[in-house]
């Protein structure tokens, strides 16, 4: 482990890399989950509840992968975090709005 850290070389590099790893794993997971909720809400009335959930879930891995790659391609760790949080919030809020909308239709 210390070797790995040394490899990421120099004290200045160590923490940003660690932060990015956290962003990719935890932030990416959160984003993927939010995205799956969003997709299943979006498709709810098109293909039925279970299939909508299923499609959302199947796409999570792709979203997760893209998120992780993106995290490691931007200039700074803070930018990566910020981007992930923004997107996750966007998906969550849109999902919530969509849910209100579907309730209106049903009632």
């Amino acid at each position: 482990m210390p070797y790995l850290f040394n490899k990421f070389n120099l004290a200045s590099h160590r923490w940003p890399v660690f932060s990015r790893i956290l962003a990719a794993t935890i932030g990416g997971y959160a984003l993927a989950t939010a995205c799956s909720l969003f997709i299943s809400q979006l498709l709810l009335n098109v293909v039925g509840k279970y299939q909508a959930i299923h499609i959302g879930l199947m796409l999570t891995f792709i979203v997760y992968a893209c998120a992780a790659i993106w995290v490691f391609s931007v200039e700074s760790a803070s930018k990566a975090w910020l981007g992930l949080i923004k997107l996750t919030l966007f998906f969550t809020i849109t999902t919530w709005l969509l849910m209100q909308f579907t309730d209106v239709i049903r009632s």
Partner: protein
Amino acid sequence: MKDNFRQSMKWFHTWVGLIVGWILFFMFLTGTMGYFYQEITRWMEPERPFIEHNISNEQLLDTAQAYLNKHAQGIDGWDIYLPNVRDQNLRVGWRHPAEPGKKRGKYKIKVLDIATGDKVASRATDGGRLLYRMHYRLHYLSTDISYWIVGFCSMLMLLAVITGVVIHKKIFSDFFTFRAKKGLPGWLDIHNVLSVIALPFHFMITYSGLLFFLFTYMALSTNLQTNDDEYREMRKEIYPRTAHLEKANQPAKMLDVSVLYQQTKTAWQDDDLSYVEMYAANDINAQVLFVRHETDITYNPADEVMINAVTGEVIAQQAKEYTGAGIIHNGFFSLHEGQFAGPLARWIYFFTGLIGTAMIASGLILWTTKRKPQQMKKPNGPDFGYRLVEQLNIGTIVGLPIAIAMYFYANRLLPLDMVDRAAWEAHVMFISWAILLIYPAFRPAAKAWPEQLTLAALVYLTLPLVNALTTDKHLANSLPHQDWNFAGFDLTFLVVGCCFAFAAYKVKVLQASKRFSKQSSKQSSKQRVQQNKPPVLAASESLLSLQQVNKEKC
């Protein structure tokens, strides 16, 4: 991360591949052997009789039913597996009632001797099943932990595949380029070629591997959207199952399965019955389900015929209904497992799996090759990390194949009446792997490579010999019986052994020429270039043979 996108992706690809490379190698190799797990199981139970040619399905079904009537009374579900290319013995199976506190009872499979109609008493072994289950059930770990580890590794594999495509500079113009060069460019080319030619496979196998535990990995999302009942219903929609009646507890006489079998012949033109399931046997509700070999990757509903076993009526099957997403999901499963593959396609599956294994191995070797010149210049010798990677490389890439061979040795050599014999077979495998992992720590890498390769060659070449000494299912017997299951196994061992021997030889030639070139580098640098050509091939071929090796193991 780095200066530009490609640079950072390169960095990412390198480290993502390295940290889980060895586990991925293990998963790929054991998973690849899984394509032949039935064949392996049969080889590991040498008490089984040789293949019997030209026996009709009717006769086989009668034999099986007679045995089941005698020995499996009171059990609800019976299964009959007909001999096929993969396993040339007749087998029956049933699930025992669950023990208190357990969810499901144990499933037992018995191999029947067609000549006597009785079961074959074979040695205790977990066979090929254990080997292929290792690739997602990392043997010693608990189910949950291993699923998550496997998921993590697969996710990184997916990342490595995607970033690999991104960083490959000239994927089309270098499509066929393989320069048999020495050192770094040679290994880079090997890695590239192995990755590109099987790219669809790599992506498919990784993504479908993740899909297998979709609801485990994405538990958060699933739980947010469904409660327990909805979850169960959703799973039912995704994995539709053939419905059957429950037991009514009114004994009734069943018709002969072989008679019922005639009716499937109108549904299917060809005669390729795969297995038979019986529900509520010897009950008024008895039903028999005939299933033929898969003809479609979404588990074609037309491949099944359900018949009432008391009246002999064909029960109209409601075709399994797949949702669009369900078709994709199940299609990926089927592609991953390759159950539909015939013998030739199975070999191609196997070979492609080995290409994947070799791709990982070449990537790992590439890591050390790239850093070698720099590391060798260090005053205190190479870094700890470098040496660790080198050691793990040797211990895994050559060590694991040897360990798998030891699993087969254990199967033949452990005493038959040993307590926990089946478990010990696996212990032997992992103990020998551990030894081979530690061994390179005490040897210089230049010596450890050829030594372990030689050992591997030796181990595989003697395996058929040991087989001949301990059982009667050796080549001299299996070839005349045209039992390609047994014979193919031994022959494959020989081929693998030869590949390893070739690899060891090439590595030695490479080293000899290196030493030679060092001594005479001043005088004849030009000559050296020519001299070095074989070594180059050597490096590449050692890899190729490695991969074959792995392959042939089955």
